[in-house]
Each structure stands twice: as C-alpha cells, then as structure tokens.
C-alpha cells in the first residue's frame, strides 16, 4: 500500500506537481467536517454495494466485472417504477422501488450465471459484454421513451416524491441537508452485515464458499455447482442494484445517463482490497470514497494532476495487494496443487494452516 502511494508520488512529481501538497489536498478535502466526511460517506455508499457484489461472486469463484451493467439496469428500472408508480401511495411505492432495484440487478446478474452454468461461457467475457449492452439499452430507452420533451440532458422524468429516500441531513442534527448522504448508506451497512451472515452463518453460504474454493470437491460433496453459480451471480447483481437506491432514490430522483462514475469497476478494487470480506469491503469503500472526494479537489486545485490520479492509485493498490497475498504462501515447487481450476480466481477459504490464515490478515497498510 505504501509502495502504491510512493509510486503515485513519483508520478505526481513527474508531471510537475508537489506530491505532499497533492496528497495533503486529497486527505484534507476528504476529512473536513461536515462536507468532507458527509461527501466521503456518500461516495462510499455505492462502492460498498458494488464491493459486496464483487466479493460475493469472488467467494463463489466468479469474477463479476458486470456490476456496472447490473447497476445501470437497476437504476433504469428503479427510475421507471418511480415515474410509473406516481399514483401509488408512498408506503407501497417506496418498498416497491427498493425491491425493483435489487430484482433488476439480480436479473441482469443472473444472465452470466446461467450462461456459465449452462454453456460454460466465461463470466469475465459475458459480464463485460452485458455491461455494454446494459448501458446502450438504458441510453436508448431513456432517450426514446422516458425523456421529458425539451430536456437537453439524457435523463428520465423525475420520480414521484413518495419513492424518494430521505437524506441523513434531514434526520441528524448538525449535518446540513445539502449533503446528499441518504438512508442508502445505512442500507449499505445493513447489506454488509447480511452478506456476512449469509456467507458465514448459513448452510447455503457454506455451499457457495465451498464451490468457490474447489468446484470439484464441492460437487463431490453433493453441492449443485450450477445452481450456486446462478444464485451467487443473482445475489451479486442484487447488491450492485443497491447503487440505484443511493443514486436514483436518494440523490438525483431520476435516471440520469452516465450517473455511474465506474462504480462497478471500482467495486472490483474495493472487493480485492477488502479481501472479499464484508468488513474489509466497508473499510476499502470508505478509503475509496475519501479518494473520490479528494480526487475531485485534486483535479480542480492542482496545476497538472487530474482526478484520474485516483484510478492510478487504485490500480497500483490492487496490484500491490495481489502480489502481497501470494508472497507469504508456501513456495515449495512440489507442493500438491491446490484444487484451483484454471480461469477461476481462487478464494482462500479452504481449510488452511493457521500461519497461512494469519498471513492473509490485512497487514502493512
């Protein structure tokens, strides 16, 4: 992690800015009260959802690069319900909108799951293709069916007031309500707890993790791998759909094309950095939320560095973490091969010796 920051500092210096000043700006603008922290939590909210989405898939041995498409579909469907359900009472419309967000994401996520289970299509390729298709479809529908006449921006009509999610600023004294941090943040925290309970406290979660650790062994133990794959991708998609609650119901109150700042892709980084554990995902999302907030200020107030610095740092951090994870693993060349299948990212959840588990705990951050 330090190495990633150091490499970033070199880059900042190379393009002619002062690394200390840029990092100071990054941190200072992310941690000020109330705006810095409020916005950091707001930016972290979608990343918690997408980080969890990627992590659940990872635990099942699947690399879900499709969270971006899943959250696009979810956002569009949620906005559609929010607009079409204007006649419904709020107590019915609000839960319906939340449910739509999760269900639409789950449906889009289940597609690569089915393609994998049924046809053996690699999820890395199918999810990326589904990303392009989702964004294209949403743009098409938003433009041709749901755009308000005369609106120059590619967005739908606003959703009904009953579907809106309250801002935390309206509930908490001391937090100005201009900050768009909303109830979706609490939902994201709840999602962390739920994912933990589901994966580590239920039989079904055990089956999911067993399939991810070793599909052959799991199948031998009587677990239907295909079903697990589809279900894991559906849950993953539902979690990605949580982004729609934050953005459509809690922030813009409409579908706005291009609303996602690559949340689905940043979610990959969040999951990897958080070691595919809900607690780690939450911490990593907060870190990335702070970087998102700080990156904005870096882009505006520094001479040469753009906010893209954040992406560079994220890429370097993932690389550093990926390299670190293996450095502590046994290196005897004759070690019996762990039952990892080709092409599936393996998740270290097999019964292991305590030293290895200890080595995988977060260290050196």
């Amino acid at each position, binding site marked *: 992690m330090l190495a990633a920051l150091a490499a970033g500092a070199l880059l900042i210096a190379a393009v002619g800015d002062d690394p200390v000043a840029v990092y100071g700006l990054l941190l200072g603008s992310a941690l000020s009260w109330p705006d810095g922290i409020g916005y950091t939590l707001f930016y972290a909210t979608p990343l918690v959802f997408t980080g969890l989405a990627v992590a659940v898939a990872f635990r099942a041995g699947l690399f879900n690069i499709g969270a971006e498409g899943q959250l696009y579909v979810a956002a569009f469907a949620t906005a559609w319900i929010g607009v079409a359900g204007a006649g419904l009472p709020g107590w019915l419309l609000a839960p319906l909108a939340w449910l739509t967000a999760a269900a639409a994401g789950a449906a889009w996520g289940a597609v690569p799951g089915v393609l994998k289970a049924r046809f053996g299509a690699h999820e890395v390729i199918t999810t990326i293709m589904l990303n392009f298709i989702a964004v294209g479809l949403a743009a098409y529908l938003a433009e041709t069916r749901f755009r308000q006449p005369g609106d120059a921006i590619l967005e739908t009509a606003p959703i009904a007031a009953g579907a809106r999610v309250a801002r935390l600023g309206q509930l908490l004294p001391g937090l100005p309500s201009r900050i768009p941090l909303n109830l979706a943040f609490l939902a994201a925290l709840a999602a962390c707890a739920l994912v933990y309970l589901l994966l580590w406290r239920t039989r079904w979660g055990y089956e999911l993790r067993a399939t991810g650790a070793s599909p052959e062994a799991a199948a031998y133990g009587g677990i239907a791998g295909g079903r697990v794959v589809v279900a894991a991708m559906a849950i993953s998609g539902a979690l990605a759909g949580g982004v729609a609650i934050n953005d459509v119901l809690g922030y813009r109150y409409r579908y706005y094309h291009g609303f996602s700042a690559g949340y689905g892709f940043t979610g990959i980084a969040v999951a990897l950095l958080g070691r595919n554990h809900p607690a780690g995902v939450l911490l990593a999302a907060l870190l990335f939320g702070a970087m998102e907030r700080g990156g904005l200020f870096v882009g505006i107030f520094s001479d040469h560095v753009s906010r893209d610095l954040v992406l560079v740092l994220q890429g370097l951090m993932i690389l550093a973490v990926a390299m670190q994870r293996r450095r502590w693993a046994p*290196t005897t060349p004759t070690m019996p091969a762990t039952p990892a299948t080709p092409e599936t990212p393996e998740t270290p959840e097999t019964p292991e010796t305590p030293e290895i588990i200890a080595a995988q705990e977060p260290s050196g951050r």
Partner: protein
Amino acid sequence: MTGPVLWFFVVSGVRMATPLLLAALGGIYAERSGVINIGLEGLMLAGAFTAAVVTHAVHQPWLGLAAAAAAGMAGALLLAVASIRCGADQVVSGAAINIFFAGLLPLLSGALFSSTGATPPLAQGEQLPRAPVVLAFALVPLTAYVLRRTRFGLRLRAAGENPAAAAAAGIGVARLRYAAVLISGALAALGGAYLSIGQSSQYTRNMTAGRGFIALAALIGGDRRPLPTMLACLFFGLAEAISIQLQGAVRLPGQLVQLLPYVLTLVVAAGFIGRSRPPAALGVPLTDGGGDSR
C-alpha cells in the same frame, strides 16, 4: 448485394478486425504459456496513447509504432512481475493493469496537453493506415509457425500445459512466461496504436472501448490457435463494420445497432467458448506446482 458494396464491407471488416487480431495474437502467446492476460484492454490503450503522442512529437509514425510496442512491453512487464514472480492472481493483476492505465493515460494527456479527453490530432500524412493491417495478418502464419515448429514455441506450450514437467526437463518456465507476456503486451499495444494513428489521427479517452476483451473472446473462441482466432477477429470486425454502416441506414436506432458486436460476442462466448480447451496450467501460478486440469 452488389460487388462494390460487398468489397466495401470486406475492406472495412478487415480494418476493424486488425486491432482485435493484433491483441488476440498477443493473447495467444500469453495464454499458451499459461498466463491469462485480462490486461489486453489497458495495454491496447497504452499503445494507442503512446503512438499518438510520439508521432505527434517527432512526426514519424514508425517511431510512434515502435514506442507503442515498447510501452506495451513495459506495461506487460508489470503484469509479468506480479503474476509470474510474485504469483499474484493473474485475472486480478490483469484487471489492475486495466484500471491503472485507464487512470494513467488521461492523467498524462491532461498534464501534457491540458486535456484529459484527447491528444492533439496528427498532421496530414502522418498516419499509418495500411502497415499495421499487413503486419497483423502476416503475423498469423508466423505465429502458427512459431508455436508449432520452433523450439521456443514447443517450450512455450510445454510451459502452459505442464510447467512441472517442463521445469523437470530443464526449461526455464518463468523466463518463457515472461517472454510470452512481453510479446502479448507489444502486440496488444500495436493493435491500440493502429486505432490512434491508423484508423484515426489522435488518441481519445477510452478509445479501445472494450476491444481488448473482444480480442480475448476471439482467441478463446478460436481455441487459442492463430488461424481460427483470425477468423473470429474477422467475424467481429465484420460485425462492427456492418453495425457502423447500418446506423442511419435502417429503421433501428443507432444505439441499438452499435450493440451488435457485443451481443455477438455474448452469443459466441455462450456457443463456442465452453467447448474450447484451455492450456492445462492456464491461470495457475508457478508456486502451486501447476498442472491441475479440469
């Protein structure tokens, strides 16, 4: 369909296939040696950027092309060190490479040209519209020959199929994988360079638009063999050419027609890829002993 129209589609299909083919051939080298290169997309983008910047600076497109290949190799070295030397998960490190370049290139173009969106357009006559096409298609038989008939190719395949046995036979598996990943970086970057200084005359943000992944689909659909992979690339290239021509020509709206290559990739992925057989040790880091097959 009349003759000239057909010819037009063939020519533009070949053009669209070229960047895919270069990247896919690179991917073949990496995958046959046992390394999945998800980072093709980022490496292509790096090549597109470098070629445009260097050509703009020195007014020599060939130097731009060479610089792109060098940049691709530098980027691939990052992937190689992470996944071969440190045994990091290949898919994860490849994804990290993509994120890294998605940020680095706009940052550099912002610092150099005060625009994170594009580099300045090249002057007239500074493009290389044909050479990369010829290069790409000439590399198909060459790659087939190298893989099948040369000592390097034989060892490369051994490294991908059974690294433990290859190592026992005295082959430097790690070194071979380094070479293969570096080749894949150079070729992917050349594919990207064709986008910026061949098809157009500048680098624009995210101009690869998922082509690295389509190349990945093509090489898997082509069973990691050069000739079938070339056919897969031509298929995708033709799909892209047709989708560009269909926009405005038919009643379907442009946004939907643009999706055609992606839908086709999805169908191909579901229809064929399940049946292709990856090298036995693909994705397995060396420290695991390798050789575990499905």
